[in-house]
């Protein structure tokens, strides 16, 4: 892709020398001749990638880090003053780390306390569920409470009619 134009114009004569001085020539239509030279694809691709990774990534990052360290500089370790609670980013030395902690990361103490709250809540639920299970088990064993294993007989009158008719039917049947 694009190379610094200064380097490109400076390399112009060298490129012409490379491509036009080969021994092998293919005579094509009319006045044109194609110079057969070994492929320069890998070399050009390498230069392209090197340029990208340095100019696009390494040099800006290194320049940013260097300028930060020279302009702002790392912090100095000191004792926590009496009665002062430092901000989260005041626990780190490098200004870049402090920036990231200030703007992007989670608060360590908050996450710790959130975790404790979660543990407490799930333990609370677990204890309640254990109690429920025990109560259900006892109701099943003793059968003395209407809540879980009680089937109410709501169709008592139909039961009576069916029972009476069944008895009469059994009486009228010849003895089997």
């Amino acid at each position, binding site marked *: 892709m694009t190379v610094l134009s200064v380097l490109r114009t400076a390399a112009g004569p060298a490129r012409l020398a490379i491509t036009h001085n080969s021994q092998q020539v293919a005579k094509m239509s009319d006045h044109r001749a194609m110079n057969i030279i070994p492929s320069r694809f890998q070399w050009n691709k390498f230069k392209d990638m090197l340029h990208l990774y340095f100019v696009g990534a390494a040099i800006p990052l290194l320049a940013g880090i260097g300028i930060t360290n*020279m*302009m*702002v*500089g790392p*912090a*100095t*370790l*000191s*004792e*926590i003053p009496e009665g002062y609670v*430092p901000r989260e980013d*005041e*626990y*780190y*030395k490098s200004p870049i780390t*402090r920036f990231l902690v200030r703007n992007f990361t989670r608060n360590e103490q908050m996450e*710790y306390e959130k*975790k*404790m709250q979660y*543990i*407490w809540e799930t*333990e609370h639920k677990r204890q309640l569920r254990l109690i429920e299970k025990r109560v259900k088990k006892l109701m099943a064993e003793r059968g003395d409470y209407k809540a879980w294993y009680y089937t109410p007989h709501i169709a008592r009158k139909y039961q009576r009619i069916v029972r009476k008719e069944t008895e009469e039917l059994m009486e009228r049947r010849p003895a089997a």
Partner: protein
Amino acid sequence: MHLETFSPPTDAGFPWCDCPQCLYAPLLSTVLWFPERVVVPNRKEYPWYHRSYNRVPTIDQCYTDDPVCFFEANEQWIRDRQVDREIVNILRQRWRDCAFYEGVDAPVKCVELQKISEDAETNFFIKYGDLSAYANVKDCYMKQKHRMLWERRHGPVGTGMKTEQ
């Protein structure tokens, strides 16, 4: 970053690295001129702190059905174990520095440091040794309990088990 904190290699193991102070000092002051005179005075000093954790109840003060207390005791135990590891490391490093400096005389001249370091390692192993990589504070507490039971039945550790009689 001061001139006095850098000392020249006068007796490095490699003769081509040796440099007398008279040649070293001007080189260093040239290199340090820019940071010391230009960069550092133009930036403000600001502090950073080490995190200070409050002490929480240890595992022997927690109820068995209190997972929040267990969690906090566990976190504290992990931090304390890391501190103990660093302590053992520092004591060991002191002995090693002495041995490196004395060379052949180390077994005679570094005996105190060796004893201190080995005692620290022993105590560390008594407390944290042979627990798995996934150990928690309860495992450590139970290890202590089992050691005390064993000592009650067989006497101090290192005197051998007593047979049934």
